[in-house]
Every structure is written in structure tokens, then in C-alpha cells.
């Protein structure tokens, strides 16, 4: 009698808690998902709300005294220049590093190298910044002087070259070093996914290794490479510390080897700690612009990845 009662009680008890447990758990899971959506909207919302006073303020009170557009335009251009330099350097080298690890290096070495690349992607940006400011900048002084002397007629190499080497070109090179491991590790994943049968077929037909890569690997990986580069671009655009430490900023100039130019992220990091009132709103507005630019870049990257997913031979 008592045993059946006990068993019954245990059974009903378990069922009841189970049902509530299910509800609570699925509710919590849904809530967490909703929270993520809410956070992203909150990021946009708070930036917009806090940026609004900037747009309402009279043009003369904005830094530079000519309104927000003429304040933000040079640093947007500076951001784009630095990111472009970074990608021009990092893309070919990153793809080649990925190819080396996936198709050229001996297999045992390749695993270790892949791990090293992942580790390098994890080095904090402030360390790269410190390296760029103290080591790389002084190393690049001599090449810059040479460029100013021999290629000075090209506007981007117009002299006199910076005596500290802390220029936008140096910042771009540091950014390139930072995004290189990212591009390399993302494209390596794609190269490893290239269908083995296609590659073996190409080799069996007498293709050399390079012809095999050109015919069977690169066409498969094109979408992946583009999206990896776009993600690297997103990182380069938003990177703060490397630029803040390396670049001695100034007004917008065409020459890459003189001190000058500034990026949005570095502008915020350098000025926000002491900013108050309108200046703070102004910097948040600059952050909003940066947010929108990176958002657009990332969306395009994701769109390419998804399109690539549907059409690739992988599935």
C-alpha cells in the first residue's frame, strides 16, 4: 500500500517537475536567443540616441567648426586607407600561407603550422601596436626616406618622409600583420574542404600541382577566400589599438609616408577617456559611423558565404 503510494507520488512529482523543467528550460533558451537580438538592437539604439545631440548641434560647435560631415569625412577616409593597405598586403600572403599549409607543407608539419597560425591570431592587438610603434616604425624610416627621394613624384609617396616612421603606411603594415593569421586560417579551412576526388582526378590526368590547385582548388574556394578577406577587412576597419599606438595622427593628406591621417577607432580611443558633453556625443556618432561601415562589410561577407554554401559542391 505504502509502496504504491510512494511510487505514485514519486511518479507524479517527477512528471510535474519534468513538465515545469521543460517549460523553464525552453523558455530560458528562447530568452537567451531573444536577448542576443535585443543586445544588437540595443547597441544600434544606444549609439543612435547618444549620437543624436551631435546632429542637432550647430556646425560651429563641432570639432573643426565646420559641421559633423567635414569632421567625420577625413577619418573615414583614413580608416579606409589603412584597411586597404592592410588588405593589399595581407590577402596574397595570407592565401599563399593557407595554400602552403594545406597543399605544400608535409602533413605532419602542416598540423603544427595550422596551430601556430591560430596562436598568432590570438596575440592581443595592443602587443602588435607596441611592436609597430617601437620596432617596425624605426625600421621603416630608411625605406620611407628612399621612397620620398626616388618616388616622391607619386602623390602617395610625397616627401618629406616622417622622421619617426609613425605613418599611415606603417599602421597599414601592422594591420596587415594582424589580419594575416585570420585570412590564413579561414582560407586554410576552405582549401582543406576542396573535394579530394577533383584534386586526385586532376593529378591523374597529368596536371602539375599548381595546375591542380588552379583548376580544382581555387575555383571551389573563391567564395570562401572573398569572405575571409571581407572578415579581415571588418577586423582591419575596427582595429583600434594598433593604429592608436603606431600612427602619429594629423589632418588628412595624400602622402602615406608623412605623419597625418587618422582612423575612426583610434580617434575614439585617444579622445574618449577625456571627452565630455558634446565631444562625447560626437565620438559616439563617429562610433556609429564605424559600426555601420563594419556592419555593411560583414553583411556582404555573410551573404557571399551563404551564397557560396548553396552552390558549392560540398553539400
Amino acid at each position: 500500500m505504502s509502496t504504491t503510494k510512494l511510487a505514485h507520488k514519486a511518479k507524479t512529482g517527477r512528471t510535474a517537475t519534468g513538465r515545469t523543467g521543460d517549460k523553464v528550460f525552453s523558455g530560458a533558451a528562447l530568452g537567451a536567443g531573444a536577448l542576443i537580438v535585443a543586445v544588437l538592437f540595443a547597441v544600434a539604439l544606444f549609439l543612435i540616441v547618444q549620437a543624436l545631440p551631435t546632429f542637432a548641434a550647430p556646425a560651429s560647435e563641432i570639432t573643426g567648426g565646420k559641421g559633423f560631415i567635414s569632421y567625420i569625412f577625413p577619418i573615414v577616409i583614413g580608416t579606409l586607407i589603412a584597411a586597404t593597405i592592410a588588405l593589399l598586403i595581407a590577402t596574397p600572403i595570407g592565401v599563399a600561407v593557407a595554400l602552403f599549409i594545406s597543399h605544400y607543407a608535409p602533413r605532419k608539419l602542416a598540423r603544427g603550422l595550422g596551430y601556430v597560425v591560430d596562436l598568432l591570431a590570438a596575440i592581443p592587438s595592443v602587443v602588435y601596436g607596441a611592436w609597430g610603434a617601437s620596432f617596425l616604425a624605426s625600421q621603416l624610416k630608411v625605406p620611407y626616406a628612399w621612397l620620398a627621394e626616388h618616388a616622391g613624384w607619386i602623390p602617395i609617396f610625397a616627401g618629406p618622409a616622417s622622421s619617426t616612421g609613425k605613418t599611415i603606411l606603417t599602421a597599414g603594415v601592422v594591420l596587415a600583420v594582424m589580419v594575416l593569421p585570420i585570412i590564413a586560417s579561414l582560407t586554410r579551412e576552405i582549401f582543406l574542404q576542396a573535394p579530394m576526388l577533383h584534386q586526385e582526378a586532376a593529378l591523374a590526368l597529368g596536371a602539375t600541382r599548381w595546375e591542380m590547385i588552379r583548376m580544382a582548388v581555387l575555383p571551389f574556394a573563391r567564395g570562401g577566400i572573398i569572405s575571409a578577406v571581407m572578415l579581415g577587412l571588418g577586423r582591419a576597419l575596427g582595429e583600434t589599438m594598433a593604429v592608436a599606438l603606431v600612427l602619429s595622427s594629423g589632418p588628412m593628406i595624400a602622402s602615406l609616408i608623412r605623419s597625418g591621417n587618422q582612423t575612426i577607432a583610434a580617434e575614439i580611443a585617444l579622445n574618449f577617456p577625456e571627452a565630455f558633453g558634446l565631444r562625447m556625443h560626437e565620438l559616439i556618432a563617429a562610433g556609429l559611423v564605424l559600426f555601420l561601415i563594419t556592419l555593411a562589410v560583414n553583411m556582404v561577407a555573410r551573404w557571399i558565404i551563404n551564397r557560396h554554401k548553396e552552390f558549392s559542391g560540398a553539400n
Partner: protein
Amino acid sequence: MATLMTERKRSALTRGRLPKYTPYAIAASAVIVAAALMALVGFNVFGWAVLSAVLFAVGNVGSSAIVEGRRKATDKLATSLVVGAFLLALLPLISVIWTVLVNGVPGLVTPGFLGSSMNGVTGAVDNASVKNGTPVLGGVYHALVGSVLITFWATLISVPVGLLAAIYLVEYSAGNKFSKVITFLVDVMTGIPSIVAGLFAAAFFAMILGPGTKTGFVAAVALSVLMIPVVVRSSEEMLKIVPNELREAAYALGVRKWRTIMKVVIPTAISGIASGVTLAIARVIGETAPLLVTAGFATTINTNVFAGWMSSLPTFIYTQIMTPTSPSNPDPSTQRAWAAALLLIILVMLLNLGARLVARIFAPKTGR
């Protein structure tokens, strides 16, 4: 007779090919020629290595183009370029690590560096230590405490939210519209510039608690904006590869869905989830920009994340370089900055290695 036939055949097959020793011969001559050329303009090891490599590549491709034809030569050219790019990529990365080691070790082994804060260490103290040649005073204890606390709180916020969201995506959503929206936004969030995440947290708390609120907790919120997407992505991948048979077996035994998830799905995936979380921690512990705008800087030990400014390792490095404690003698500050950078890299590397270890420890026991 038969041997003669095979002899002739082999020679026909190997026609138009360079003998096997060619690359070695070219390498040897490239090294010698490079040394000779360098001797003319002034010898240095680095230039010698680069010149030898270039000469080797040119010789290899050139000889192949003459003897083996265009296709083989193109192949060798591509190989040289790929290997060359790889070596080129290694240079700055080795240089970064070398610079940090050389500059960081003296500061890191200075007694009291790990155990003391910057409290009371002023420009005058630094000037005195440079003048008298005494060891540099001041350390990173306050920054280390700050980094650990801020990262701890960020983890405390991000892991439940990220893990639950991943569970929703994999176990509950069944691929509905909302889950697609979440996946897309998580992808977008991965690309948020860290400074923007910092601005968000600063703006958020400025609205709630009044402008200029800078505490460790604000920084933790900023970091969790960066950390959540990483946790979601990695946990999602790990939950997806749990075999469906395990879930079905649990359901067949009458186990509730939430208990199935808690007792079957998560334990199976825990190794991957744990290593994903560790990697996410490694990523945010090195973030500087968001901390700069949310936690401020401090020179004293602050163990309360809810009140007062807080220092952290990355902001410590940044402030020591940008605004040296003693403007006239920046060397002690530089030394502290490099030592902190070395400490930070060691921490990040340990976390990365820890992720591998964690994955191995928590890996579910297989039948064998």
C-alpha cells in the same frame, strides 16, 4: 638484351627532366653567388639569406623553363612564390615575439613586478631609479587583478546566455525564421569593432547611472558583447555534432527533453563547449579599446567591479607607453609595458593550450 630494352625505355621516360640533384646544385651555387654579391656591397646575414632564396628560385624556375618546358616551370614558380610568401609571413610574426621576449623578460623578472601595484609610483620614483640605477619599482598586480575580475564577470554573463542561445538554435528552434535571424545577427555581432562594443556599454550605463560611469562591470558588459557570439558559434557547432541516436535513445526511455539536454547532449559536447569558452576568454582578455572607454585606468588595486575605475593588463600596457609615468625618463614605463605585454601573451597562450587540454579531459569516454 632485355636489360638494354629497359635501359632505353627509362631514358625515354626521363627525357626532358632535370636530374634529381639539380635543386641541391642550384641551392649551393645560389648561396655562394649570393655571398659573393653581398661581399661586394657589405655583408649581412639577413640580406644574404634573402638574396640566396631569390637566386635559388630564379635558377630553379629558369632551368626548369629551359629543360622541362613551360608547365613545369610555372609549377615551380608557383611553389617558390607560395613558400616565399610563407617565409615572408613568418618574419613579422617572429619579430613580434622576439621583440616582446627581449624587452619583456628584464621587467618580468624584476622582483615585485607581479606582486606590487603602481600605487605611489610617481615620476619622481622612476627618475630616482634611473638616476641611481636601482631596479624599477611598481608592478602589474592591480592590472592583473582587474583583468581577471573583468574577464571573470564577462564570462559569467556570456557563457549562460551564449550556451542557452546555442541550445535554442540546435534543440528547440527546428530551423524556424527566428533562429535564422539569431544566426545572422550572431554572425554580424562577431564583426562588431571592439571599440563600438565599448561605446555601447559606456552609453548604456551613462544613461542608467549618469554620464561618466566607469567601473569594471561596465567593461565586463562591453566584453560580453564581444564574447557572446564566439560562445554561441562554438557551442552551436559542438551541439550539432552530438549524434541524434543519443537523443532518441533518451526520449525512448521516457526522459524529458530538458533532462535529455542536461544529462545527455551537454555532457557529450562538453569538451568542445569548454574549449570554445576558453578560446573566447583568450580572445577578450587581450581587448584594450573597450576597456579604455569603460573601465578607465587606475594605479591602485581595486577588487570591486561595481565601483571605481579599474586597470587591466592591456590598458596598463597602453597607458605606460602613451603616457609614461615620468615623461622625462620613459624607460621604466617602457620596461613595465613590455613586461606586461609578455605576461599577457603568456596568459593568452596558456589559455589556448588550456583549451586543448580541457577538450581532452572532458572528452566523453568512448567504449574502448
